[in-house]
């Protein structure tokens, strides 16, 4: 007899374990017609000082600004000038081209790993546009758009990807795990969600010191299942911290759909309700909605009205990384069927609709972005690609473990240098 013998209690109804399954698997025809997509402009915009509860209906809605006619509509329209819109479009296009070039570089054996953010470009670039350059970010690995939108040199990013002589992280970090203090971009961790409560801590520091800068923490839908998500929400709520907590719900955590992180039960934005903080659910493929929601949360934080959890609803259009093949777990044409469209096409269509853009200018800009990326790649490859690295300056791998090299590391360094890396 054992505790797991059901015959022991044969007269009671047998319990069932529910294991979530996505709607579509390889071979299925994706059909998102039952997905609830509220009309653009339909979501109300509470005052930024409103009690958190006033935002809670928005956690099951969807803040959308770009309408079917590609015009901006409703109370969330951030009324951006055309230059700002064009800058956001350019940043998004640059991100996509950058991703394509670096993906190819990995396939060519120039580096070990790469991660694209295809379909999610609006989120980081519009968030960067909505915050001040002095504000701090604790990103995940899919917010390369923050760096690009903040004007970070593309060559720096590529040198990191190649772990080459120009890599400021000295060949220590997996490609795309950028870090730059001056650009307010905290070192990316492979241990997911660790950065989410760290962002809260940074903002607590800013509040302790009476600073005016705020902080934005980022997490994916899958990693909301980590305890660190709960820690972040708890501390943010307890100390009413001036932080923006963003969950990018691209619906896929490698091969696990968002239901494995709890999405069958509630939206990710709804988690704000239980903590009593403001929550917004936003169309992540609508750059104007992303901008407006971050701007709203930033105003709220800056005026000491507390934290906001924002769910950016989007779709991971490509694989998790260069090590992933999504055709093994979802239909290959699912991205095309995704009803919220492509963020670049949508912003471009908006600029066209308001008469601030034309196809010729778009082509010209795309060529410029492509040339910029190619030039950066050429420049960075002059400093080497990954297969050539790790042979010189072996002793450097013992630096920065501590401020000063202790005796045991000095001994090991001597041995490593003598071995010569073989």
């Amino acid at each position, binding site marked *: 007899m054992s505790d797991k013998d059901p015959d022991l209690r044969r007269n009671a109804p047998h319990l069932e374990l529910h294991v979530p399954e996505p709607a579509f698997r390889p071979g299925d025809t994706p059909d998102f017609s039952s997905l609830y997509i509220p009309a653009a402009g339909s979501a109300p915009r509470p005052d930024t000082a409103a009690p958190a509860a006033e935002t809670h209906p928005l956690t099951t809605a969807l803040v959308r600004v770009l309408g079917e006619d590609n015009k901006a509509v409703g109370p969330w329209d951030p009324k951006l000038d055309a230059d700002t819109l064009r800058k956001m479009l350019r940043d998004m296009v640059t991100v996509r081209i950058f991703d394509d070039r670096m993906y190819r570089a990995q396939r060519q054996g120039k580096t070990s790993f790469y991660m694209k953010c295809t379909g999610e470009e609006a989120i980081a670039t519009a968030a960067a546009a909505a915050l001040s350059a002095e504000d*701090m970010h*604790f990103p995940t690995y899919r917010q390369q758009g923050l760096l690009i939108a903040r004007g970070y040199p593309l060559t720096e990013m590529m040198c990191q990807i190649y772990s080459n002589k120009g890599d*400021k*992280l*000295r060949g*220590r*970090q997996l490609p795309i*795990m950028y*870090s*730059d*203090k001056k650009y307010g971009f*905290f*070192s990316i*961790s492979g*241990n997911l969600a*660790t950065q*989410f*409560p*760290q*962002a*809260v*801590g*940074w*903002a*607590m*520091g*800013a*509040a*302790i*010191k009476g600073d005016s800068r705020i*902080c934005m923490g980022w997490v994916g839908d899958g990693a909301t299942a980590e*305890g*660190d998500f*709960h*820690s*972040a929400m*708890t*501390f943010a709520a*307890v100390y009413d911290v001036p932080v923006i907590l963003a969950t990018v719900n691209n619906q896929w955590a490698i091969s696990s759909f968002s239901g494995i992180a709890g999405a069958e039960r509630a939206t990710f934005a709804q988690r704000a309700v239980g903590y009593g903080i403001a929550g917004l659910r936003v169309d992540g493929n609508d750059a104007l909605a992303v901008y407006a929601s971050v701007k709203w949360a930033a105003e709220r934080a800056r005026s000491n009205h507390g934290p906001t959890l924002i769910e950016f609803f989007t779709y991971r259009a490509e694989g998790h990384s260069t090590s992933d093949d999504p055709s093994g777990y979802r239909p290959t044409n699912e991205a095309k069927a995704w009803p919220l469209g492509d963020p670049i096409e949508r912003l471009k269509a908006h600029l066209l609709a308001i008469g601030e853009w034309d196809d010729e200018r778009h082509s010209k800009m795309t060529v410029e972005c492509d040339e910029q990326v190619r030039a950066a790649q050429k420049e960075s490859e002059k400093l080497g690609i990954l297969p050539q690295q790790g042979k010189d300056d072996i002793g450097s791998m013992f*630096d*920065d*473990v*501590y*401020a000063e090299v*202790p*005796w*045991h590391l000095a001994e090991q360094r001597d041995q490593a240098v003598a071995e010569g890396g073989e």
Partner: protein
Amino acid sequence: MPTFNMIQALNDAHKVMMARDPDVVVFGEDVGYFGGVFRVTEGLQKQFGKTRVFDAPISEGGIVATAVGMATYGLKPVIEIQFADYIYPGYDQIVSEVAKIRYRTAAEWTMPMVIRTPYGGGIFGGQTHSQSPESLFTHIAGLKVVIPSTPHDAKGLLIAAIEDPDPVIFFEPKRIYNGPFDGHHDKPVRPWSKHPASEVPEGHYTVPIGKAAVVREGGDLTILAYGTMVHVALAAVEENGLDAEVIDLRTLVPLDLDTIEESVKKTGRCLVVHEAPRTSGFGGELVALVQERCFYHLEAPVERVTGWDTPYPHAYEWAYFPGPKRMKRALEKVMAE
């Protein structure tokens, strides 16, 4: 010079550093208004204000993570994990973040923080209030691990830890917070006031991190110990009529190997003592280093006195604790050959 117990000495170290450095912030479970369950942070909130000393939610992961964020911002967090047994929810943040951030950012960001935590048994705390998990931290590149054994060293080492540019895990031997312990649990507790190391200088001073102390000179053998076990070892030496050299390591990482090597080469015998379980305990590292450095000077195998490889059992606390009987047997063994 005032006479302090270890709690008062640690409290004083906080006061000195909070007054000197406006970036020092202190938080943890119950540390604010109440002053901590062991009273180490008593009076700090009143003196330095609620935004520099405050209670944290029961979330060790959140405490460490927000301290990381604050250190990134430019503050110097000195956080308390109420018992070392509770540190594991914060372990990912400590191992993957606190320890690695200097390295992975090529020193653009550093983690000057102190994680204080009471550890060790002998207080009838059962398995969740008695553990000695120091070797889980000595194994992690990027961390420093400090364990004082007297009020004088506790204050000086805590000040040094707060001033250190790297993260320090600061283990406080809670059995000896109020008085040194000779291992005889049935005897009344002796207060610190009768011990010379309870004399604690006023104001700022440091005990250097990475420097051991020879607390008893002798020629028969060398005993390596830290925390509570320093006092248990000293008592055992007298009870067994030996002329032992007793070294209080004080810092496990970076280790003061020179002091150890010099002593073992002089005595030719070595006993390693800790309260933590034996297998993969820090004693294993010490034995390996001693045999690497002193093999041809050794006259007997290096012995270990440790806790058992079991969870810390409540009612069997004194059968678990490496007390006078285990010390006596090991001393006889290491002296026999």
